[in-house]
């Protein structure tokens, strides 16, 4: 197996792809968003449930996509649930920055935990979108909830 491939399909990615965490759509939730990647047809439906002080009570999802995007959704849910939106904002920002760096930046495992396993994709511009799609859906859900609230 080529070293580039093994950097992509890490054990953790395969693990999350095979046994996605927090998958499936659950109640209760504050908002549900649906995102599509028009180039490949990948889809994610994501539900977000926050407390009044923006603690992430639950995040559930249904993802159709490649191993990278499914693993990314699983790892994201693992990272986010039980934390506050504010606390997780630097995590999201760092993860996105590193993913878009084309491999120039190294990831901070203290911040992004298992997300580190996804960074192999940063070298493949065609895959960056796959990995970021769940995060985009999460952000869209946040925007919606905040809009609903005022």
């Amino acid at each position, binding site marked *: 197996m*080529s070293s*580039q*491939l093994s950097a992509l399909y890490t054990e953790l990615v395969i693990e999350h792809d095979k046994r996605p965490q927090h998958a499936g759509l659950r109640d209760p939730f504050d908002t549900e968003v649906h995102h599509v990647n028009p180039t*490949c*047809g*990948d889809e994610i439906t994501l539900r977000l449930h926050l407390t009044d002080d923006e603690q992430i009570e639950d995040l559930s999802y249904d993802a159709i996509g*490649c*191993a*990278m995007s499914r693993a990314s959704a699983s790892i994201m849910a693992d990272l986010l649930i039980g934390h506050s939106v504010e606390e997780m904002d630097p995590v999201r920002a760092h993860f996105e920055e590193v993913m878009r760096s084309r491999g120039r930046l190294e990831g901070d495992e203290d911040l992004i935990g298992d997300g580190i396993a996804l960074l192999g994709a940063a070298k493949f511009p065609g*895959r960056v979108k796959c990995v970021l799609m769940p995060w985009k859906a999460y952000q869209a859900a946040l925007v919606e909830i905040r809009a609903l609230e005022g």
Partner: protein
Amino acid sequence: MSASSREFDVEAIRSDFPILQRMLDPDTTMIYLDGGATSQRPRQVIDAEVAFLTQDNAAVKRGAHRMASAATDAYEGARERIADFLGAPSPDEIVFTKNATEALNLVAHSFGNGDSSTPARLRVTEGDEILVTEMEHHANLIPWQELARRTGARLRWVPLSEDFTLDLTDLGSLLTERTKVLALTHQSNVLGTVNPIAQLVEAARAVGALVVLDAAQSAPHMPFDVAELGVDFVALSGHKMLGPTGIGVLWGRYELLEAIPPFLTGGSMIETVTMERATFAEPPARFEAGTPPISQAVGLAAACDYLDTLGMEQVAAHEQALTLRALEGLAGIEDVRVIGPAASPERTGAVAFDVAGRHPHDVGQVLDSLGLQVRVGHHCAWPLHRKYGLHGTTRASFSVHTTAAEVDALIAGVAHTVDFFRSL
């Protein structure tokens, strides 16, 4: 012009394509199996464009000076060359567009823009029907959806059948006196299926419907003759037939081009202009607003020369042999299912497949690591994929420069991919 004047020697052909020397990384040779998305350019095409740009470049049609004449000769000469390549009765039936997509939009928009002076058969209005097929590329679907939306016409479609060909069982009820246009692809860019155009043209004629043919995937790969096909309009792209991007072709019967209103408006397509209104030039000028793709037309003509030197019969035979080889090889791999008809003369060039339980992105990624450049996703034919319950496929497509060894590498690569994911 299909008689070849050169032996079909793949190695010699390969040496015409500079890009085939490219390494993806120091260990990985590039194997380009994505000609269905865009083809590579032989040296002859690149050189023709560079020669034009360094010797004859000027604005066409508008100038009286010698450079303008030279450029106009080159541009209009390209039009003649392409008319000849397509078997068009006259170069005045060749409209240069930016791609096949624009050509299809042009027809779809013009059908909706007529007024009382436009013959009724060239005007789609409320209550009319437009017939497409379930295998269309988005380029030959959405412009018709939009025409239907704008005019109140009804869009209907010929469904796909389980054997990956069009299901013509209900054609009689789909194609009726209400049908103004049948728009369909000559060859599916996913399935490789070649549609029975003669039969469909006859059926359309019987009800007075016009036939618009999307030849983006056929004209580059087989002997092609608009007169023989009997259709009314044909759209194709330069970049899929060894020519430049930025140029496409709409062929239309002259009497139809003459009767439809213009689409894009501006310079070079007018007869007279006042501040209040304009009258329009005869075709093809009427449909070529603004400065056209001049050097690209020259490049496309060189691509026609190149293909005709090889001979389109031989091109088709070569690509068909590769297709057969690929189909046989892939059939032997467990968990791999070809999405397209079995080998036959009615199927060519593109071989799409599904690897059970694996997303095409992942399949394409492993193949890429082996140098195999194949396309993954819905290939701009989303409804087709939905029909077969797929989110996407992996597609290899073959070109004049593809070798049997490359096809074997594909087969081995797919087998390796299946193993790779199993091993994880």
